[in-house]
């Protein structure tokens, strides 16, 4: 992918994430609420800059999942910095903010744990990224990673348990 395309991809992903985030607070029935739809919408916006075919579609989703992970982790980092003494004047101590701060830390921990998982089992790390950040379903993930659906199910269960354990240790 060339640079402008990547820029657009990134913008689209970022904006879809923003919309997704906003949908939680607004409960607007016209907005879609799950990451599957989110990636789909981003895909629709970018479809004609990509080669056609289901492979490229999955390829796109994989990149979108990576972009979402990056956007969220970036945001979590900024949020953490804010908590640790950014512009204190604006930080009000309400519950929601505390929850948000915890979530930010969780995301950073998850990011690190995923990197660790990638060292032990790269395919599983990619699988988690695609499913969790990109909203790919089992069938799509299986097709992308060229394994059976039952393998994905097994891998997911093990990876999920392992990541949860890492997060608990970190927290």
């Amino acid at each position, binding site marked *: 992918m060339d640079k*402008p*395309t990547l820029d*657009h991809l*990134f*913008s*689209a992903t*970022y*904006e*879809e*994430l*923003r919309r*997704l*985030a*906003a*949908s939680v607070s*607004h409960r*607007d*029935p*016209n907005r*879609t*609420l799950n*990451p599957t*739809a*989110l990636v*789909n919408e981003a*895909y*629709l*916006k*970018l*479809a*004609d*800059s*990509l080669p056609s075919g*289901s492979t490229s579609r999955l390829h796109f989703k994989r990149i979108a999942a990576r972009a979402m992970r990056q*956007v*969220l982790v970036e945001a979590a980092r900024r*949020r953490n910095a804010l908590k640790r003494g950014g512009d204190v004047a*604006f930080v*009000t101590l309400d519950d*929601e903010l505390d929850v948000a701060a915890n*979530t*930010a830390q*969780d*995301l950073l*921990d*998850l990011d690190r744990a995923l990197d660790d998982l990638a*060292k*032990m*089992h790269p395919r599983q790390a990619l699988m*988690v990224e695609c499913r*969790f*950040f990109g909203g790919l379903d089992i069938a799509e993930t299986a097709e992308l990673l060229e394994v059976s659906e039952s393998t994905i199910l097994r891998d997911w*269960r*093990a990876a*999920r*348990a392992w*990541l*949860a*354990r890492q*997060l608990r240790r970190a927290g």
Partner: protein
Amino acid sequence: MDAVRWERVQSLFHAALDHPETERRAFLEAACADDPDILLEVLELLDEDARVGSVLDRGLATIAHEVLELPEPAMRMFGPYRILRLLGEGGMGVVYLAEREDLGTRVAVKMLRDAALSPARRERFAVEQRTLAQLNHPSIARLYDAGTLPDGTPYIVMEYVEGEPLNAYCARHSATLPERLRLFMAACEAVQHAHRHAIIHRDIKPSNILVTEGGSVKLLDFGVAKHLERQDASADMTRTGLRPMTPAYAAPEQITGDPIGTYTDVYALGVVLYELLTGRLPYDLSDRTPGQAEREILEREPERPSVAARRSGSDRASGSLAPVSADPRAWADLDVLCMTAMHKDPQRRYRTVDALIRDVERFLTNRPLEARPDSWRYRMGKFLRRHQRPVAAAAVVLCAMIGLVVFYTVRLAAARDAAVAEAARARRIQQFTLSLFEGGDPTVGPSDTTRVLTLLERGVQEAHVLENEPAMKAEVLETLGEIFQKLGDFARAESLLVAALDLRRERLGADHPDVVPSLIALGALRQEQARYEEAERLVREALVLGRRHYLSEHPIMIEAMVTLGSVLQARGDFDGATAVLQDAIRLESARGPATPELASALNILAITRHYAGDYEAADSLNLRLLAMSRELYGERHPNVADDLINLGASQFERGRYSEAEELFRQALDIILGFHGPDHHKTASILTILGRALVAQARYDEADDLLRRALAVRERVFGQDHPHVASTLNELAQVAGARGDTELEEAYYRRMSDIYEAAHGTRHYLVGIAKSNLATVFMKRDQYEQAEALLREVVGLFIETLSADHMNTAIARVKLGRVLARRGQWAEAEVESRAGYEIIKAQADPSSNWLRFVRGDLVEAYEALGRPEEAARFRAELVATAP
């Protein structure tokens, strides 16, 4: 942990899971006897497996919400503005309510979050600002101010609209059908205002249409609007593929990446209307894969609003918008209104938002709608629409230039649709034709002419099965014949139309009223085949037969008269054509002040008067036509542009170039708004306009327009298409007029090459390019080259056109002059004289070519010592001096 150990942990983990919960520990202890660490590890994982609650188990939406949501703007105070609270947020930016401290007024401030992330987003934000600055309408939120915060965050300050989304407002007020429609029309008017400024909104949806407590409507969020004329970044964005939209409201062309136009907004307005009427969206795209979502939007016909409303009535979520209640007849109209706005084919939608508004008004005042549901003929012929009939070829063959062809959509087709729809057989025929297109193969969607031809062939095969139903079979054969005719396959058309006529005569009798349309159809074909005598005979026969069965104002009779008028015009019988067309117009006018049939008759009459040299009459007819087209199709419809072009062509013809220019510019404005800058139709008008500028010696402007036209045509048709060649011809003339013969020569050479590649060397268009090239050599006194070229051209014209053709004459006149310049007077006289005789038989006496050749002949006869003949042509010259 390394990969090997992880494999072992996993396999123990899965093995343990295969055991009943109570036995797992025992199993693991046995299996991990050698390695207590691994036992601990697997037990921890099993423990996690049974729990829920890590970040992985929470929805990404919630996480994004918590992490991305910065509770405060980057600054609370900037300039005179003080941020009060968050109003809303979208992908692009976040909107705050703010107060202008010095004035105490409330405003909305939109900020682009994370502006540093992407240049594309910054550019889009800037485009939104420019767009808003252009618009000034009570239903569009106004732009007050714009700037950048110290941290680089761009912001715009807009009118604060205190209101709620259109559908929420309607739900809360339990708005009635007329109330909803009036709000909808107000939104339409705001969109129409933007369209007048060549701005397409591209993201129309209820949440961007706010209604204030007082009931006034405001259209918001031009964040992804596109300017039709400006080459801004949003255009660039469209090219590289980022197509901002909300899928539920996205038009098919937004999915496929086809050109976006004002029709794209018409579609979205259709979806908004659908939602207002039914309380639900036409397509439920949540949880669809991209492929499914695309197919839904591109292929599936949504449930008709009447049906969707019935369904909504029963399974609607509380608090959501209730469907409107209306009687079945009102629903029938609402279905047509909505489905016309939302038609998958942009050409079948309301052509303008104005037209949509007018139909809503008609509905509210119980008048019949302009929109008509798709007819079976439409479904069958929808891929043939590109085949338009060239008329009003207003440019005279000066310097053997390629005629200016103004395209005019065949408006007759629409009228016939209506007539056929009334016929009792329509439904059966519809099923028959639709089955042709569906034909068992789900992927069949005729997308090109070839595919359509295949389907038509299949239709011809299947039509023969209808032996027991001759009436229907004849009708099918006739329809297929007319379609082949439109495709330019006259041989196939002929065999089908003749078969239809024979079948009707044989089964129904030669005197049966149904024979009349067959005669008309075959007559129209004969005209296109240039078999005018036969055409006239057939249509007159149709009229004679028709008079025995129909009243003279019957649509079939009017069609016959209009066809006869057209045939007579083609034969050059302008008076006869005028008489019959005037009769047809008088009869048709009684049916209504503006019908497509009337427009068609007026158009043919206008062209007839134009050819007859009666420009005044042509003008007044064209003006009437223009008013009618505006009434029928709205201010900014391509048909209106066609009428403007016809008017302009008539002005051009009379040497009123600046008037012509003005009319062409109006047409260009419409076509740009409708088709955008990259459309072949736009290129056609640029070319015509360029010619009007050349006539005024404004070569720089002409050159600029023609180059734009050239670029569009190269893009649309490819570098080597004949349409590109005709623009090259114009450019060459500009170059010639400016004295740049090098460039002129280069253009003509490329033109010639294109025609040779497209049509082969023995084609008259190649001759025209070479004849023009010869003129360049003549200007440079390169007579040897000019002579060789012109001799070739004369032979080519005689072979491909005829010895008496005007083009042959012009080439011979040119050849005569070249020979004279070389001192070969005897030969020169032969060519000039031959050219003279041909032109004299055809053109009017004031023709420039006649003056040109008379001068040459005077010179030749004097050089040859034949003073009487010289005197004769000198006298003619004097007599015809302008």
